[in-house]
């Protein structure tokens, strides 16, 4: 089963906006490999006749009607924000680009 490389861990950290130094990469990369290997052991018991499962419940088509329900006030919405300004969530300078 795939061993996760140090470069891949660095890339994942970049995507998650987590800064890791060399020592942390050395420390984490082998740990992630072990986790992946553990999970890969499931492949050993998944026979060809067992389809991959994405949902625990055997349901489809669960919908709601297009009806407005009361929402939070701006004060409530912002109450958990570390910082706000102009009734908006204040977030650190965005380095990258919009998605």
């Amino acid at each position, binding site marked *: 089963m795939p061993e996760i490389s140090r470069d891949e861990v660095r*890339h994942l950290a970049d*995507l*998650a*906006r987590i800064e890791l130094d060399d020592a942390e990469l050395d420390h984490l990369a082998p740990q992630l490999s072990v986790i992946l290997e553990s999970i890969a052991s499931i492949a050993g018991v998944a026979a060809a006749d067992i389809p991959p499962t*994405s*949902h*625990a*419940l055997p*349901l*489809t*088509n*669960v*919908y*709601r*009607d*297009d*009806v*407005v*329900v009361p*929402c*939070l*006030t*701006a004060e409530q*919405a*912002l109450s*958990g924000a570390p910082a*706000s*300004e*102009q*009734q*908006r*969530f*204040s*977030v*650190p*300078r*965005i380095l*990258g*680009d*919009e*998605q």
Partner: protein
Amino acid sequence: MTTTLMSYDDAIAAFDPAMGLEVHVELNTATKMFCGCPTEFGAEPNTQTCPTCLGLPGSLPVVNRKAVESAIRIGLALNCEIAAWCRFARKNYFYPDMPKNFQTSQYDEPIAFDGFLDVEVEGETFRVEIERAHMEEDTGKSLHVGGSTGRIQGADYSLVDYNRAGIPLIEIVTRPITGMGAKAPAVARAYVATLRDLLLGLGVSDVRMEQGSMRCDVNLSLAPSGSDKLGTRTETKNVNSLRSVERAARYEVSRQATLLSAGESILQETRHWHEDTGVTTSGREKSDADDYRYFPEPDLVPMAPPTEWVEELRAALPEPLRVQRARLQAVWGFTDLEMRDVVASDAVGLIEQTVTAGSSAQAARKWWVSELTRRANEDGIELAELPITPQQVARIQALVDEGSINDKLARQVFDGVLAGEGEPDGVVAARGLAVVSDDAALGEAVDRAIAANPDVAEKIRDGKVAAAGALIGAVMAQMRGQADAGRVRELILEKLAP
């Protein structure tokens, strides 16, 4: 970076463009995709949110049935297959426009796929193949504070409003369109315009590009003429008017051709369109799909639209655009060429409303396609953005029909209405534009014209009626154009009867 851009004609002579268009459409449902928050445009910041669309722990999404219905109807109208079974997926990324750190989207199981839309450019039909139409949710809006320009670059921090986060979006993706040659930018524009009209007909979206309820990304690449390979593409994001779609495509053709001709290569990247300067600039390098670590959304069960539902929706679709246009053309009595100009000017809906307001179709066409299209082009805006309504155009034509003004004066009434001077009647009064049809006043002017042009008058007395034109011109000059030319002619012929 090369400084001089190759001209569009030179670029097209050397290269063939291939284009892919991605259009995001906000549905006009009353509530968001996965929660019951309202979707009104322009509400105060963060007044339309709840734990679900804020991504708070423990909240659970539930799909809006109406949004699924709209997605299926869009798919059917685009001649797509509708998935018998499909799931939502999480598109993971860390960016504060989505508080959940992922966007709920569809990945490899779109609700609609394999369709097409025919668009016409200068009488030629291009079949644009639709790869997929999938459901997803819109993101929040960021306001960048600090720096000099309010753009992302140089901002000190950002302020986010999540009212828009979670509004249902349909993303419609074409397959690469080739074989367009020099018409590529026009095809891009025609596709977006046709798609907008189709969505308007379905009533599933406001499709207001200026409000962002319809947004277009233009993927474009060049290959050397005659080559059947696709070149490296760029994706120009959020091009938000029909005019910009055309201009951005045109600019990218020239820009890429300039680089390729200089032996440089095209970087696969996202680019930003700048409406004011008419150029695109480099954004981020495109992430691989892998980087989004898509996986099936565990909180939403799969969708399996029953065949009966899909067929019911198919049966209730409005008449196709092509059929509707053919019908309007027949009713209006336009030639193929006239209708083509109407469509190219994006005036179908405007003429329809002007006719409803009482104008003849030909008059409505004349004003919108000739007069007003020219003015919109001069101002660099869309025809529909001109500050004049179909009702006002109809009223101006009614004033012409009544004989209160003539076409020349009508143009001055257009000037006044467009300058914000009020309704047509008010402009006529305020500017003193009504034609003089008072026989006494006209009679004096005719007498003066006859006295000043005795030789012309003699010809008319001899039966050369065609010479009357010169006298009509002289009278109109005296009256500064504000005379009823028909009545002037009658008076001249009466006075100079043989």
